[in-house]
């Protein structure tokens, strides 16, 4: 099959998924709602105490947690992609697609691209809310673009993971629950408090898990502080997760 036809099939599947998002906006609202609730909760309820604990105030804390909340938005959207893939797998539409002369991975690619659109829109909305509640970035245009790039690359990796989980599960309920641990990782990293304030064992885990370098890179780019080796670690983690998840998803999809 030529590249042109493959691209056309992928864009058709993307259009199908975007139409789903348009017709069922409740999922997107939920994906935006959860991080926004956490943002408001942490800034207004815990922000005074945590801000003081970190040597600042509520405004400083809003700036500190925004990168973590943005990454939580990405993690939340994985659940949406996983559910959407599982619905396709269990409702029989995939069996119909198999009988058609289309580029086989286009079904999954459509989900990934639509997931990217949904995630980046959600990230934009959450970032606007963060600005309203006191987030004050010191980034240049380059910093903003860099942060968006890092978020997009990591989102791409996690969405492929969501697709793999969706293909592998037997029911929509399981697909909804399986990505939940990803939501905890920003908490168990530097998303909400610095890793220095954690007990030794937890600090060790927090420093070496994938979300921490991504959060630190985004924080550095948005706040205009040095990024150090975090950027490389973030990109390596993203590439590893994307490659592993892609291979897993395609293998499971071809087997079913």
């Amino acid at each position: 099959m030529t590249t042109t036809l493959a691209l056309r099939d992928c864009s058709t599947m993307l259009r199908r998924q975007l139409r789903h998002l348009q017709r069922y906006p409740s999922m997107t609202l939920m994906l935006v709602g959860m991080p926004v609730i956490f943002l408001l909760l942490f800034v207004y309820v815990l922000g005074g105490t945590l801000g003081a604990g970190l040597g600042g105030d509520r405004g400083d804390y809003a700036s500190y947690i925004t990168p973590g909340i943005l990454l939580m938005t990405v993690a939340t959207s994985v659940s949406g992609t996983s559910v959407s893939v599982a619905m396709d797998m269990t409702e029989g539409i995939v069996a119909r697609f198999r009988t058609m002369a289309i580029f086989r991975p286009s079904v999954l690619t459509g989900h990934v691209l639509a997931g990217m659109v949904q995630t980046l829109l959600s990230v934009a909305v959450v970032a606007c809310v963060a600005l309203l509640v006191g987030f004050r970035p010191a980034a240049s245009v380059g910093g903003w673009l860099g942060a968006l790039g890092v978020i997009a690359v990591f989102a791409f990796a996690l969405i492929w993971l969501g697709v793999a989980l969706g293909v592998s599960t037997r029911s929509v309920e399981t697909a909804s629950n399986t990505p939940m641990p990803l939501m905890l990782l920003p908490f168990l990293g530097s998303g909400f408090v610095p890793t220095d304030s954690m007990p030794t064992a937890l600090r060790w885990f927090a420093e070496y898990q994938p979300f921490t370098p991504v959060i630190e890179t985004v924080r550095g780019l948005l706040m205009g502080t040095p990024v150090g080796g975090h950027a490389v670690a973030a990109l390596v983690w993203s590439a590893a997760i994307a490659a592993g998840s892609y291979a897993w998803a395609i293998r499971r999809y071809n087997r079913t």
Partner: protein
Amino acid sequence: MTTLLAEPARATGPDRVAMTRTRITLGETARQTMILAWRATKKMRRNGEQFFDVTFQPILFTAMFAFIFGGAIAGDVASYLPLMIPGILAQTTLTACMATGVQLREDMDKGVFDRFKSLPIARIAPLAGPMVADLLRYAIAATLTFAMGLLLGYRPGGGVLGVVAGGLVAVVAGWSLAWVFTWVGTIARSAQSVQGISMMIMFPLTFLSNAFVPVETLPGWLAGFVQVNPVSHVVSAVRALANTGSLTADVGWALLGCAVVVAIFAPLSVATFRRRM
């Protein structure tokens, strides 16, 4: 051909009284409630997931708040525990009571309540039975939260009596609030909608309280709400009893609030339940 049947003998004397009696005594109501509580307990034993919210939540929340936020909020984990443990205890017991409404709605949808309606039992028994059984779940939540706290280094100044009293206040508060969700269970269309409505009620009430941070650290407009939030009174009551063993005004306010909630929502639940069935 016509068959003539003799007219059935009419019940007379004491038998007739037994047939027409519709009043159920308080003792019978209590006995029927306990039978249905036993049924609910059996259901819990067979569906282990009904214990997830009262086993995993206290352990997960206690560990998470202590280890992740303890150092940042109070400098070290041990200093944060006296503030946090009573807060998590109140939060866990109060959120655990949401399951009551969900379970009730599921039972009503399955039709088992149609069977109960045809039985000569007190109308409140099918509602009160599961509520009594849920006391076990709240007790598990309270015990696990305190146990987890002790493991992490929490040393309550109120001693055993203070801890038990604090636990009892939390359990009573959970049981009282469960009547609200029982009522929601009788008016909602599905178990999912009960879950959604319950979350909308409980999420703001538990998190916009003094459960995790002192009121002084909150912005003015939020502090005003937190001070009148009934959950804050429950948290303060548990905190006072467990940490110092003192019987403060908050204990009175918490128990008064519980009494008011039961006085309003227990009759309301029964009335709606009767109308719906």
